[in-house]
């Protein structure tokens, strides 16, 4: 073969392989960037999209034009079901824009991004203590994607090895039961956690995650303790950022609902043991002071749901009704949160206002005390460390 023929064969093969890879990736659309039809057994569930949530959800959002936007971290991402029957009609369609690992300023940018779609009427903003404690102040606003950025996303989800790997993984794992899916409304399914529970059991999962969160929080707590005012006082960047977000909602006629997400008592006790309770109360007071600008719901307390007993390690039969692990609650609890917000009476969750705040803080403290007398183990274990 002559070298010129070699070059022609090589070039054709390169182009053919590239085009082939591109078409395959486009058909599978593993990150749901293009919103191609989901075909059962081929690409109906999108486990890989749940590893690239921001990329996937940005493109889903641009296609969806939702009336309600759910913002926050991986907790609402998994626990808030956009298809839940509880949503009132005027809230539909709902889009879940929860991004794993999100903190306050990221959530703020997500709100800007969602508001730019122009149809959003309601925003459920899930804050949790961690999102505020670990807020990463930045003045960076969200900017609409340039044509160049859109082209880059399209390129990245068709003509890259990671896209090809993701496509193959998507197709090959369609039949696996523990495969998490990112549905077209942005919600990640609970399958991933269900799988972990099946392998390890709730006891093991809680123990591992408690250890992990403890190490994480212990390093950060050194920066936080004694910094309550700087973290969320009225002049703190985080507090101002929340006000800014509410201002944007007013401007765009979006009704904001702020939600302090529930954590399991294990997690609350970790915070308390690290001396973070004053910080959490500062956060709650700050949010309560916004009470006339927005609905603020506090689910962060010691309730029957959050103090649910956890099976021992090695107990594979024992169940937990409301939580997967200390920080991630189940859709069952997500639905309960929605019920409370949409008017069902109950004791779970309190509307925070300047009037209710003192009673709420006192109530949670009292509940904390009685929890400790009932379940001293967690407390003791933390004290030993």
């Amino acid at each position, binding site marked *: *073969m*002559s*070298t*010129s*023929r*070699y*070059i022609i*064969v*090589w*070039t054709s*093969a*390169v182009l*053919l*392989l*590239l085009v082939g*890879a591109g078409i395959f990736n486009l058909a599978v659309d593993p990150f749901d960037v293009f919103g191609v039809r989901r075909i059962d057994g081929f690409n109906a569930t999108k486990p890989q999209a749940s590893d690239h949530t921001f990329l996937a959800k940005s493109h889903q959002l641009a296609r969806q034009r939702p009336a309600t936007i759910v913002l926050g971290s991986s907790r609402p991402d998994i626990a808030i079901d956009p298809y839940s029957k509880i949503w009132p009609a005027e809230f539909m369609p709902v889009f879940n824009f929860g991004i794993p690992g999100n903190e306050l300023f990221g959530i703020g940018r997500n709100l800007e991004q969602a508001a730019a779609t122009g149809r959003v009427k309601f925003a459920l903003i899930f804050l949790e203590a961690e999102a505020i404690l670990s807020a990463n102040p930045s003045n960076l606003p969200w900017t609409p994607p340039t044509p160049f950025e859109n082209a880059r996303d399209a*390129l*990245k989800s068709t*003509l*890259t*090895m*990671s*896209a*090809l790997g993701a496509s193959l993984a998507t197709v090959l794992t369609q039949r696996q039961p523990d495969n998490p899916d990112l549905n077209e409304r942005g919600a990640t399914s609970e399958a991933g956690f269900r799988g972990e529970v099946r392998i390890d059991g709730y006891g093991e999962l809680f123990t591992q995650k408690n*250890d*992990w969160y403890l*190490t994480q929080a212990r390093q950060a707590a050194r920066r936080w303790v004694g910094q309550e005012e700087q973290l969320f006082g009225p002049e703190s960047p985080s507090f101002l950022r929340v006000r800014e977000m509410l201002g944007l909602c007013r401007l765009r006629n979006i009704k904001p609902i702020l939600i302090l997400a529930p954590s399991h008592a294990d997690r609350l006790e970790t915070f308390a043991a690290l001396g973070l309770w004053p910080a959490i109360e500062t956060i709650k007071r700050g949010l309560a002071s916004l009470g006339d600008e927005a609905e603020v719901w506090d689910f962060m307390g010691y309730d029957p749901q959050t103090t649910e007993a956890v099976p021992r390690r090695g107990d594979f039969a024992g169940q937990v009704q409301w939580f997967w692990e200390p920080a991630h609650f189940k859709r069952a609890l997500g639905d309960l949160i929605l019920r409370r917000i949409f008017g069902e009476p109950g004791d779970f969750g309190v509307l925070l206002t300047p009037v209710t705040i003192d009673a709420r803080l006192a109530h949670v403290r009292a509940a904390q005390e009685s929890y400790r007398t009932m379940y001293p183990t967690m407390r003791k274990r933390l004290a030993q460390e």
Partner: protein
Amino acid sequence: MLFNSYEFLLGFLPLSLGIFYITGTYSRERAIQWLIAISLVFYAWWRPVNVLLISPSILVNYGLARTMLNLGERRPRISNTLLWVGIAFNLTFLGYFKYLNFFEATLNDVLGANMVLTELILPLGISFITFQKIAFLVDVHAGRIRSFGLQDYCLFVLFFPQLIAGPIVHYREMMPQFQMATCQFNGRDFAVGITLFFMGLFKKVVLADAVAPYVTNVFASASGGQSTSFLFAWLGAIGFTLQIYFDFSGYTDMALGLARFFGIKLPVNFNSPLKATNIIDFWLRWHVSLTRFLTAYLYNPLVLALTRRRAAAGKPAFSGRNTTLGAYVTLLALPTVLTMFVSGLWHGAGYQFLLWGLLHGLYLSVNHAWRVLRPRFWQGPSYQRLMMPVGFALTFTAVVAAMVMFRASTVTAGLRIWRGMLGMDGIALPGAVLHRLGGFGDRLMTHGVIASGASGSEFVALAGWTLLLLAIAWLAPNTLQMLSMYEPALGVKPLPDRWVAWRPSSGWAIGMAFVAVCGILSLGRVSAFLYWQF
């Protein structure tokens, strides 16, 4: 502009090559000028100020070299002075940008002074460019270069395939090629070029970049003050050795391929160094053009001067088996350690690089001493039989251990990895991995292996990639061997035909297309070549 970026591969390269070939059909001169212009664009891409920094240095060097050339052998003293002025100028230039900060920091450390550190922009590739310019001045001074113009000189310094990270080339091996180059499309060169370039791209973006994040985690945790257990320390160290191996090997292949598109053959720079059976051999395979430079312009003159001085003083010189300890120390150990110290300093302004250089100096000295001493007590076939595998393992271990310092952010972090490699911080496996091992895992735990909280999947990925890359580095033929029939690098001789020999056939075309597509599809993530920092 990185070789492994979309803008280079889809924009810069096709455009500059296309115009080069078209221009070349009617004017070689214009094509060469175009090549210089695009080289400047390439250099300026990252930071345009780079061109402003490097241009005066080019002009000064050119001026000095011209003057030396005009003086010829008539005024040796002035010519000598000019040479030393030139060397001093280049070293000062390099020193100012690369070492001022380090020098100030060292003074602060040693004297407890409190100097404010000068933060300077390090012009890209300055270490490579500086060495190449010094070699040029020495060559002109020695009369090895008889004539050159400004255009030749600019082309020699700026030729973009080797501009940033070598190979360090000599004027006398490049210029005849440029003079002979047709500056037109040549099927044979182009076919060899795409093969080399895309094999290199594959090594860089598919192999080296795959192991990189896991290696980074090991070293980052050491930098963060955490102790590293035995297996993680070794995997991190070997993983990094392979990362830089495929990174540099990939870069070198890409440079060879790019130059070949223009009809130019660059010298050999990388030749399966992990197959070396002793450390001297390693340095004849790893960064060959740097070894060549340091040997020719530092080590040899030094040894020559020292040997002559000893000879003049009537002391014994180095003479095979009868060498005395004094001769060994002054004529071998001293210049070797010094040369490798300079090499360490050249690679980076930091104590860890100095330590790396000194270690290799020590390795080489021991290797040389062994060569002298061994025949006195051990000869015969048992030596070859035993020493080949032992030397191979020893060399590998020594290289890996030294590489730790090359990667560590500080000496302290490097020492922490060494501690781990010596087993001083225990042996641990991620709990998840130990539990999956079942009974074997339990047995390991009774023998002192600890279950750690490290991510199991990350450990498996690091171990898996390390083993795979190791297998490739040890067992696979290298690009120079595969392409030996087509002189992939300057002076490579054809090897006896083997099944891995590349030839223009449809099988190879499709296989290489597959390699190229893997590389192109992996371009998404941006990662710089490790050697671009030097």
